[in-house]
């Protein structure tokens, strides 16, 4: 009775072929031009082997960008999870179901905004003269507060915007995760006179370990997309204090010198690093 069904092949082949072409052609091409010395102004260029890669490791700006990117990943992932778990628990503990519904909607606003909008909104809020966030400091001390122009605070200020977008969003997810937990362990702990914070620290959070690790994983991937925020808020400045790898690759390949091959070698290194690291993590997290 069972006839051969053509549906899986018909439905899967075209989209997968398109995805494969769209993903592999640029990847292969990036590797190809990273072995050449092509520039934007000159369409050709010749084979230079590993020269671009060797140059990278003596390029201080590149090493700085690696450091900034790593700092960015650690800071934004950690703070996002801390904010998300904290606010998620508060929502679960103190908010009525109606308040939860309203808060859920409000907490989703930041992450839905275009990154360019979020970046501008906060850039203006942090404006040393007219900003609403810096106003109280200015009113009290009489000094303008210029967080984005100081190398010590610029990266953290941009990170704050990223955490604002993702921390609030993940708080909603943590709330939904807490809602899926069975109530019995909580009741048992309450009968044993456990304090609220003990219930969460020793029962709820450990029960949610797997989904929370997945959330951290998602945030690690999304934190790679820091470019929009940094481009609008600081352009990598002051100096190179907030220049992440994608910002540096962009300015090498596009703005300053048009060294496409050099930028490509950076892109290839990033690609290899993220693909290897994330694949390893993913295979470990998923059973």
């Amino acid at each position: 009775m069972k006839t051969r069904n053509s549906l899986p092949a018909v439905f899967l082949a075209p989209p997968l072929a398109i995805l494969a072409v769209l993903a592999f052609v640029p990847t292969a091409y990036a590797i190809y031009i990273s072995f050449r010395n092509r520039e934007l102004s000159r369409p050709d260029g010749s084979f230079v082997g590993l020269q671009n890669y060797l140059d990278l490791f003596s390029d201080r700006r590149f090493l700085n960008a690696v450091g900034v990117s790593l700092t960015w990943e650690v800071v934004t992932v950690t703070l996002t999870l801390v904010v998300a778990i904290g606010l998620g628990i508060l929502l679960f503990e103190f908010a009525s179901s109606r308040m939860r519904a309203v808060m859920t909607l409000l907490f989703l606003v930041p992450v839905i905004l275009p990154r360019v909008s979020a970046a501008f909104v906060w850039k203006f809020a942090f404006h040393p003269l007219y900003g609403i966030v810096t106003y109280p400091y200015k009113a009290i001390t009489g000094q303008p507060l210029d967080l984005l122009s100081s190398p010590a605070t610029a990266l953290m200020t941009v990170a704050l915007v990223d955490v604002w977008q993702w921390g609030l969003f993940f708080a909603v997810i943590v709330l939904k995760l807490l809602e899926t937990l069975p109530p019995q362990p909580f009741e048992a702990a309450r009968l044993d006179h456990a304090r609220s914070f003990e219930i969460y620290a020793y029962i709820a959070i450990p029960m949610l370990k797997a989904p929370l690790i997945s959330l951290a994983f998602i945030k690690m991937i999304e934190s790679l997309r820091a470019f929009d925020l940094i481009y609008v808020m600081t352009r990598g400045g002051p100096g190179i204090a907030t220049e992440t790898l994608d910002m540096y690759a962009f300015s090498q390949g596009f703005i300053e010198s048009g060294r496409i091959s050099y930028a490509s070698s950076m892109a290839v290194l990033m690609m290899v690093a993220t693909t290897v690291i994330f694949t390893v993590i993913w295979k470990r997290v998923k059973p």
Partner: protein
Amino acid sequence: MTISRFLGKAVLYLAAFSAVFPMVWTAINAFKNRVDIVTPTPLFIFTPTLDNFAYVLGRESVAAGLVNSLLSAGGSVLIGALLGLPAAYAIARYPNRWSADIQFFVLSLRFLPPVAVAIPLMVIWLDLGFYDTRLSLIVTYTLLTLATVIWLGVPAFARVPKEVEEAARVDGYGPYAVFLLIALPIASRSLIGAVAFAFVLVWNEFLIALMLTTSDAKTLPIVASELTQLGRDVPWGILNASVVLLSIPPLLLIGILSGLLNNAFRRKSN
């Protein structure tokens, strides 16, 4: 106990306030004349003006950016949905020995740093003569929309009760009719959320558009960011107005997107 309750609620209200106030403040500033923005003390009471919006909407670059954004996001989302929804259905309903690998491949596309895709694509489109065209943007964004629709579509189709599809098959429906007439309508709520999410992703996309366009095909985020980089006499009101304009479409979809989130978690708990 009441003190911790009070404090907890206070923190929540503060977080909710911080979530919406910056955008509200931007919207307020969009209705101000420049003199009311450039004040030593932030002004809450002022004479509102529509000049900023009139200026932004009257600018050719903004109008062109809006058209480019709508066409490139609309086109790539359409292709992503037309090809991605069937693919998601096939993965959800006809598991084979590659299903897990296919899903991992689709997910792993997200691991690629955008700059690593954008630099080679810029060169490829330049060489092919399609640099700075909507066509190149739509094709590039299809990578994004297709992967997103497949990734979110699989669980949506998996939640459709199998019995319903089997009943339809007994009634003589072929596999394609089951997909079109049964699975698609039943899963439509979640699928609309998935498509809306893909649209927001592309609408908000910045880096790829920045690298693949210079003038003709510039999308709205690029136009807005150029306005924010203006020099000395920054037209703050106009800036605020353009940011508000850029943010309206995603915010309109917030209801659909939070519905997607609710669906995803509600079913899991049963």
